[in-house]
């Protein structure tokens, strides 16, 4: 193909007319911020940690538990809290290892895999938090139902209802609330990372196609 040879000849010219960047310009660039995909995943990941941890601190369950006199539940909540800390620490470690391992010096395919692995950790972390919230919500409902005196009216209604219609309605409503909550979050993340990783995924698929 002589066009390609022609291109190669032109390509190899010693002095192509690129606007040359000075040493000063390069120094300036070194102190600018990267806007790479990895950087954005890292930023979102950190924000995620802060937000989820913040939510945990905001909801001080101890006072609530005391106020409804459900002290016997305290031990379970404590176990859950410490278990949660352990899991979060494990995620922080995994995050750190993922970022440490990302290097532009490996093959393109490996680099893509590493980036996607990082994203997967973020996803797992989000999924874990969502699951935690669902568990806490259910636990909260049950506790409120069992201990909160304000709910005794509803309890009576359920007790008087032989067909269990009221109970089913309540369970149905709560389930619906949880499902809507989870779906909204899921869509949000899908959109967020979808935009961020669209090109990476396209290129990764292209590389995989070559292998077939």
């Amino acid at each position, binding site marked *: 193909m002589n066009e390609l040879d022609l291109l190669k000849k032109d390509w190899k010219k010693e002095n192509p*007319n690129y606007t040359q960047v000075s040493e000063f310009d390069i120094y300036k660039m*070194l102190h600018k911020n990267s806007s790479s995909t990895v950087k954005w995943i890292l930023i979102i990941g950190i924000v995620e940690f802060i937000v989820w941890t913040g939510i945990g601190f905001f909801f001080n369950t101890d006072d609530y538990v005391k106020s409804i006199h459900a002290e016997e539940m305290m031990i379970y909540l404590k176990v859950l809290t410490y278990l949660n800390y352990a899991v979060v620490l494990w995620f922080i470690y995994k995050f750190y290892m993922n970022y440490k391992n990302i290097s532009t010096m490996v093959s393109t395919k490996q680099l893509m895999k590493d980036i996607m692995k990082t994203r997967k950790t973020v996803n797992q972390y989000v999924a874990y938090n969502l699951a935690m919230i669902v568990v806490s919500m259910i636990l909260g409902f049950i506790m409120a139902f069992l201990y909160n005196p304000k709910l005794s009216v509803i309890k009576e209604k359920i007790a008087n209802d032989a067909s269990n219609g009221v109970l089913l309605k309540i369970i149905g409503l709560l389930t619906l609330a949880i499902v809507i909550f989870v779906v909204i979050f899921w869509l949000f993340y899908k959109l967020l990372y979808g935009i961020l990783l669209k090109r990476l995924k396209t290129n990764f698929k*292209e590389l995989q196609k070559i292998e077939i």
Partner: protein
Amino acid sequence: MSETLEQSFVQQLKENQNIVHKICRLYTNDSDAHNDLFQEITIQLWKAFPKFRGDSKFSTWAYRVALNTAITLYRKSTRSVSTVSYEVQKHFFAHEEYNYEEEEKLKLMYQAVHLLNDIEKALVYMYLEDKDYSEIAETLGISEVNARVKMNRIKGKLIKILNP
């Protein structure tokens, strides 16, 4: 220590900057995007520089990091396809001996290459730089046979674009 590292990096990048320019030229269509990508590649090169040991040439090391940045890390995707870029035009008027027919062919060729996808551009880049297939395969993380097959397909694709 880090002062001298920075100096040595800036010096070497300045001398080898055309490698980066060439990759920017394949992956971007206007001078703004070109400069943007150049900056991102510079940042990535600087980040990776402490791990660069002098056992290979700076240029050999740099092009790989630059390609990886262009393909996987660069995020400005406002790239309109098939417009003749300012960079390309400027390049063409810079020729000493002016062969109109050849110029025209070259222009079309560059346009055709711009229509390829990111991975194909990487293969074309390495082909133009006379990298052997084992190196191409290693850089992309595919097998040597597949790299050859893919390069042949790209040639076919380019012919198709040029002779519709």
